[in-house]
């Protein structure tokens, strides 16, 4: 009993974080889906979900309820046990990967010495959920989807890993917390020091999360629904949850590694301190829009809900503003780091996910051989060259005393030149392969 209390006293912050992540993540995933549908609708001159709640705000909850109580179908010829377990593997791997993310300086389950590798490694295990799910369904479409998915994931994992190595060379640590601290010390986010690495990571992370234009495993026009073809109801929802969790995970890795984590833009510069007020102003703007729209809702309850949402956002804005207005040194003022850190982190993650959506609704889909060619013949060699380039830049800077401003742009340009060469070579090859024609 005593030891239990001791245990809780030691770990209460982490445990609260863990419970919050497990409880809130499905909701967050649901709202990312809503956001995606709204963004899609906006880009396609439509309105998107409007019926459930004001502006469709309660749609995710309705969807979740529907999925939970749908009939549970396991195909006759499926390998039942594996069919049952496969989606759980995907979800658990995705969620577990979130455990070392530092969402603001306060909100983290554990700061590990191997932090970033932990995220990469554990989330990579999700591949088994996809492969086994596709295999156990015993359908052509599922199996093709699973194989495609596995091949795609593994191909782009290498490129993503190499891109991460590039940034790690600058950070000199694997701990998520220290990576962000290092960026604070340097006064520059790694995206500026290693832009090529960031580009590689963006592409690879889209491919790793099976998002368009790399959504071949579930390409609905070819493979119907890929590895998920036989899944329905809640099991299907679990795969979906896994996909959106993975999106959050890769967005968080990118944010931590390249976009300065929880740091405010120009965190070190005094002149930009007014940016501290940006979160509150931004949220107040959103709240204002809510209040502006509330009277225009057709149903009374929708008006109330929208007004309540607006009030909640104002509350958050006030909470974010409080530490700035409180006298320095007070308890309230000390909360600034945690609250604002979380805000900036989530904002960057949100923007990164928005980028995913933007690309999804703009581009057609790659073909599988093109996808593999892009991965193996462009991104992987480029990522190796990127690592070498950053190494050279660091040596030039540290050993030969070049300044940052010459060493990094120089190697970046060299890396880009290599990228151009690779692209040209790829183009040439594509031409020779373009005409497949009659097969013997």
């Amino acid at each position: 009993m005593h030891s239990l209390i001791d245990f809780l006293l030691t770990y209460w912050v982490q445990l609260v974080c863990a419970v919050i992540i497990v409880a809130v993540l499905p909701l967050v995933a649901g709202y990312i889906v809503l956001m995606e549908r709204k963004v899609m609708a906006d880009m396609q001159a439509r309105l998107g979900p409007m019926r459930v709640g004001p502006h469709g705000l309660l749609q995710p909850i309705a969807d979740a309820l529907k999925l939970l109580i749908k009939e549970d179908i396991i195909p006759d010829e499926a390998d039942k046990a594996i069919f049952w377990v496969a989606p759980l593997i995907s979800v658990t791997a995705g969620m577990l990967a979130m455990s070392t993310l530092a969402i603001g300086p306060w909100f983290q389950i554990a700061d590990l010495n191997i932090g970033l590798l932990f995220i990469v490694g554990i989330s990579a295990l999700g591949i088994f959920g996809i492969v086994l799910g596709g295999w156990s369904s015993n359908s052509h479409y599922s199996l093709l989807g699973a194989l495609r998915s596995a091949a795609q994931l593994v191909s782009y994992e290498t490129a993503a890993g190499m891109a991460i190595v590039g940034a790690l060379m600058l950070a000199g640590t694997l701990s998520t917390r220290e990576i962000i601290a290092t960026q604070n010390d340097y006064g520059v986010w790694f995206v500026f020091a290693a832009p090529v690495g960031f580009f590689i990571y963006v592409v690879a992370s889209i491919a790793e999360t099976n998002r368009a234009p790399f959504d071949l495993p579930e390409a609905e026009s070819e493979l119907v629904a890929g590895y998920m073809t036989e899944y329905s109801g809640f099991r299907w929802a679990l795969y979906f949850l896994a996909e959106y969790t993975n999106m959050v995970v890769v967005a968080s890795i990118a944010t931590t590694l390249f976009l300065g984590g929880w740091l405010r833009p120009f965190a070190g510069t005094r002149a930009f301190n007014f940016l501290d007020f940006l979160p509150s102003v931004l949220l107040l703007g959103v709240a204002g829009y809510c209040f502006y729209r509330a009277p225009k809702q057709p149903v009374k309850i929708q008006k109330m809900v929208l007004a309540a949402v607006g009030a909640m956002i104002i509350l958050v804005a006030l909470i974010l503003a409080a530490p700035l207005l409180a006298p320095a040194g007070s308890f309230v003022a000390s909360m600034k780091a945690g609250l604002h850190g979380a805000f900036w982190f989530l904002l960057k993650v949100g923007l990164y996910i928005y980028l995913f959506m933007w690309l999804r609704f703009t581009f057609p889909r790659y073909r599988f051989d093109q996808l593999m060619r892009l991965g193996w013949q462009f991104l992987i060699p480029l990522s190796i060259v990127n690592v070498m380039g950053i190494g050279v830049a660091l040596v030039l800077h540290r050993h030969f005393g070049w300044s940052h401003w010459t060493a990094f742009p120089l190697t970046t340009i060299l890396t880009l030149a290599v990228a151009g060469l690779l692209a040209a070579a790829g183009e040439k090859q594509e031409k020779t392969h373009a005409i497949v024609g009659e097969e013997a």
Partner: protein
Amino acid sequence: MPSQYIPILIFAALAAAFPAVTLVLFRFIRPTPVAVGAKLKPYECGVEAEGDTRGRYSVRFYIVAILFVIFDVETTFLFPWAVLFSTRHEGFRLEPVYALASMFVFLGILIIGYVWLYRKGALEWV
């Protein structure tokens, strides 16, 4: 057990339990499955599947997996190197030129393999 990992273990248990428990609990709310016949057949666009699903697929997939494993090992070796390249822990940081040279040798061997694969056409999908 390093102490930071204890909350992670608990989190792992929670993360694994949550979907499983939801799946099992909602069995009591869900309608009992009454699916029979065609509903339980694998989807093949509305017609009977022909041939064996668990058949064999292109060996290409296997080559991709081999290459992945090899490259994965290489990447894993790169991680500690990258960390040591500019770590802030006292006494661990590698001398930059030495580190870079050693990694260039390592990556050079890797690139030789890559070029061989490229020439051989092992990286081509079709």
